[in-house]
C-alpha cells in the first residue's frame, strides 16, 4: 500500500515539474501580444522645428 502511494506521489510530482518547466518556457518565450492602437508616427524635418 505504501509503495502504491509513493509511486502515485512520485508521478504527480514529476507531472507537476514537467508542467512547470513547460509553462516557464512558454512564459519566457511568449510575447503576450499587443493591443490595437490609433494614430501613427510622422517623421519631423527642418520646418517642424521652426
Amino acid at each position, binding site marked *: 500500500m505504501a509503495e502504491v502511494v509513493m509511486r502515485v506521489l512520485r508521478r504527480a510530482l514529476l507531472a507537476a515539474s514537467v508542467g512547470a518547466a513547460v509553462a516557464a518556457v512558454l512564459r519566457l518565450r511568449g510575447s503576450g501580444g499587443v493591443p490595437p492602437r490609433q494614430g501613427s508616427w*510622422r517623421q519631423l524635418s527642418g520646418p*517642424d522645428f521652426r
Partner: protein
Amino acid sequence: MASLPDKEAGANSADRIFADVTTVAVIGAGVVGRSVARQLAASGAVDRLILGSRRPERLRGFVRQLIGVDVEVIAPGPLPSVDVTVLAQPTGGHAELADEALGNGSHVVSVSDSIKDVEALLDLDAAAIKADRSIIIGASFSPGLSCLLARHAGLRFERVEEVHVARMGTGGPACQRQLHRARTKEAIDWRDGNWRKHPGGTGRELVWFPDPLGARDCYRAALPDALLLSRNFPDVDRITAKVAATRRDRFTAWLPMLRSPHNDGGPGAIRIEVRGMRDGIQATDVIGAIDYPSAVAGAIAAIATEWSLLGALPSGSWNLGMLDDPVPWLLELEERGIKAAVYEGISTS
C-alpha cells in the same frame, strides 16, 4: 542657460583653428568612442586625436581608417592636455576624470548613463564655471537625445505637468553591461517636488515606440534621465524614466550576464510623452526617435565636441535638456541622418 550655437563663431575661431593645433582626446575606444572618433576625423574641425584605450594594440586597424587627422593612442594614465576630452569609457569614475580634464583646461563631454556619474558631474558645475569650461553630461542616446526631445516638446506647452521617458536598445557591450546592472538597482522618479525610489524592474507599462519597433513592455531601472530633466522642469508633477525589457531580461536581471553582450545592441528607440496645459486645455505630446544608440551617442558627442571647439557652448556643467533652444542641435542631428518623429493620434481633450 544661453546655448544657441553661433555658426558665426566658427569664423571667429577659424584663425585659432588654423593657428593652433586643435586636439581632442577620446577616452574609451568602444563602439561609441570609435563612432565619436570617426565623426571628429571626418569633420575637419580636429587636427589631432588622442584615443585612450585599455588595449592600445587592438586599435591599429581602426587608426588606419582615420584619414586627415593625426592620431595617437594612449594607455590608461594621466589625461593629456587637450582642447576637449570626450569620456566614452564604461560608466564609473567619469567625474574624477572630468575634474582632472578641467584642471588641464579642457572642455568635457561625458556619455555616461550612470546615476552616480551624473550626480557627481552635476556637482562640478561651480568648478566648470570658474574654469570657464563646459561639462556636457549624458551626451548620448538616453540621456542625451531623450533630454533634447523632451526639452523641445516641453517648449510647446504653457505649463508642463508630466514628462515620461522610455527607451529600448543599447550601444556597445559596456552599455549593455551597465543596463543589466541598472535593471536591478533602485529607480528614481520625480513626484510632486520629491524624489521617490522604486525597485528596478517594477512599474510595467506598454510603450509604443516609433515603427517598426512598435510596442514593448517597459520597466523602471536606475536611469539618470529624470535626474537631469528635473533641472530643466523643476515645476512638473512627475518625471519618470523606463526601459524596455523582455521577460528573459527580467528573469535573468539578478544573475550575472549569462552570455557575452552583442557588439552593438541596436537598433533602439526613445519615446517621450509630455503632458501639460496648452491654450488653456490639457494636452499630451509624444515625440520619439529610432536609430542605433551607439550611432546617436557618437553624433551627439561629436557635435558637442565640435561646438565646444568653436566656443559656442556655455560654461558650467549641464545636459542637453537644460538648453534654452534645442532646435540647432536637432537640425544638426537631422543633417547627420538622425531624425525625430512625432506621434499623431492622441486626443487633446
